[in-house]
């Protein structure tokens, strides 16, 4: 019997096992995939995640609400302002705060800028993975311009901690407006240049069309959201379906793909950048007068001069910093359209100073599990391209 088994073994096809990651330059982050390869074709894949797990959900159970903003920065760090705003809005929903229109419009400008920054990173990196370095270098200066705007507004660039519960920390300065207007004026030319380099480039198209496709049905079953789902042809966008922060005031369309492949995902993001610009334009044009924060003394820090000169302001200052503001009991879920999908915050408050339970619905944690299925039967080089086109961010994946 033993001999027969050995003969069978010889006749069996031999596969090679390839460890792609955890630190591989082509994966742009700490992603490990154990691939079973038949020559250059991926037969099976298994993803291992958790390399930068920092237990944010646990840490959040011990922090006052305003200190959780910095945790959300580190989820999808390519568009941290969206995460920050999502968190602020979750708390505002819990405490029932009304935010002035001006603050909401300012938030929209910030969020759309960071959506552009997020898409710039993802799309240029797709181009890099197909070998087109130039577009990456050209377009990245506009991401720098966006980060300079953030720096002007909040003082930070990557992990922004932008905005506060109840509004924005300060009104946009004249310099910030100048930078926004300059970006608004000059960015379209840069984006057009990138478009010309890549979008209808034969080599790029041959390389990305039919690479890592997913059907709409499967995408929904796998919990896809954001540009990846829209590339498969489902017009789901949180900004339209459950408008938050006055998105209902703006006129914009949702770009859709048809095949759900790498090229469609790329194109959806390209189009979304134009739509974001449209939203920013409208927000600037319609910017209402008024205050940039709500009248929420229990949550919104008073100006420093008042803290030193006014008893009440001092008390509130201490209450906020020590995290002793009163919170109602209850549970809320609030979702925003993040750079790569529906970013949700599920918050249970028991009236204590910290959340009883805080759960982040991290879009890329949920859709990354489809990755092994998407690359099955494709070339290894397509697997790399599929991963970069899915916009998987390690910080959000592992939370």
């Amino acid at each position, binding site marked *: 019997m033993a001999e027969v088994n050995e003969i069978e073994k010889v006749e069996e096809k031999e596969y090679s096992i390839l460890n792609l990651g955890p630190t591989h330059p082509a994966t742009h982050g700490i992603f490990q995939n154990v691939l079973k390869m038949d020559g250059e074709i991926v037969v099976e894949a298994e993803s291992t*995640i*958790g390399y930068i797990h920092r237990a944010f959900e646990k*840490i959040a159970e011990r922090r006052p609400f305003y200190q959780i903003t910095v945790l959300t920065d580190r989820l999808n760090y390519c568009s941290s302002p969206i995460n920050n705003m999502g968190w602020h809005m979750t708390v505002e929903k819990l405490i029932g705060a009304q935010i002035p229109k001006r603050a909401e419009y300012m938030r929209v400008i910030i969020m759309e800028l960071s959506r552009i920054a997020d898409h710039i990173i993802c799309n240029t990196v797709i181009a890099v993975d197909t070998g087109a370095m130039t577009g990456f270098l050209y377009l990245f200066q506009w991401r720098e311009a966006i980060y300079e705007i953030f720096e002007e507004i909040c003082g930070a660039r990557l992990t922004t901690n932008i905005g506060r519960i109840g509004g924005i920390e300060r009104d946009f300065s004249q310099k910030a407006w100048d930078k926004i207007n300059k970006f608004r004026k000059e960015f379209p030319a840069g984006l057009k240049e990138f478009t010309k380099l890549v979008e209808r480039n034969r080599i790029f198209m041959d390389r990305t069309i039919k690479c890592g496709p997913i059907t709409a049905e499967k995408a929904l079953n796998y919990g896809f959201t954001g540009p990846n789902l829209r590339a498969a042809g489902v017009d789901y966008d949180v900004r339209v*379906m459950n408008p938050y922060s006055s998105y209902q005031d703006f006129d914009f369309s949702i770009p859709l793909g048809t095949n759900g492949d790498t090229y469609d995902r790329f194109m959806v993001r390209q189009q979304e950048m134009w739509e974001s610009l449209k939203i920013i334009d409208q927000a600037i044009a319609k910017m209402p007068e008024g205050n940039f924060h709500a009248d929420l003394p229990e949550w919104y820090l008073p100006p420093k001069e008042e803290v030193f000169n006014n008893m009440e302001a001092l008390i509130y200052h201490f209450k906020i910093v020590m995290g002793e503001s009163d919170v109602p009991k209850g549970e809320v879920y609030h979702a925003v359209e993040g750079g790569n999908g529906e970013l949700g915050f599920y918050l249970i408050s028991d009236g204590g100073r910290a959340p009883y*339970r805080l759960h982040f619905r991290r879009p890329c*944690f*949920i859709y990354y*599990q489809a990755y092994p299925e998407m690359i099955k039967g494709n070339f290894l080089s397509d697997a790399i391209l599929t991963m970069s086109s899915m916009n998987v961010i390690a910080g959000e994946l592992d939370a």
Partner: protein
Amino acid sequence: MENKLLNTISEKLKAKFGDAVISAEQSYDFPVFEIKREKIFDVVKFLKEDSEMEFGFLTTMCGLHYPDNKGKELGVMYQMHNMPKNWRIRLKIFFPINDPEVPTLTPLFSTANWMERQEYDFYGIIFTGHPNLKRILNMDEMNYHPMRKEYALEDGSREDKDDTMFGR
């Protein structure tokens, strides 16, 4: 309008499952239903496949731990979304910590796979029938489930970070 949604769905569920629906209430913009653990698979299947309900999208899922609710210490929260009609609902189940077994949703939603692994990792909830129930974010050698409330965030033996004045 939101209460209308709550009533519609709770009538539907009660007609179909009777006692398995323990409670139905509105929490902010979500109708919330507490379901008996044994029936959760059937309820989710019904909600997904019924022609009127069509909750075809599992938005998220997370574990819960209430150490003081004796006999109902652990829980799981599910959120489902009917995209065409934009209905969102939340389902909850609770069960004793000594018997943390829940039927898996992986046959209905592929996306439940990692979500359930994450809650197994965090809370030690056993999803029976799950194809690959192992830890996902923490290391395999870990011998406890860190999100349970009995585990303090920081090492309890440290004295330099004593903060009895603030925090739980």
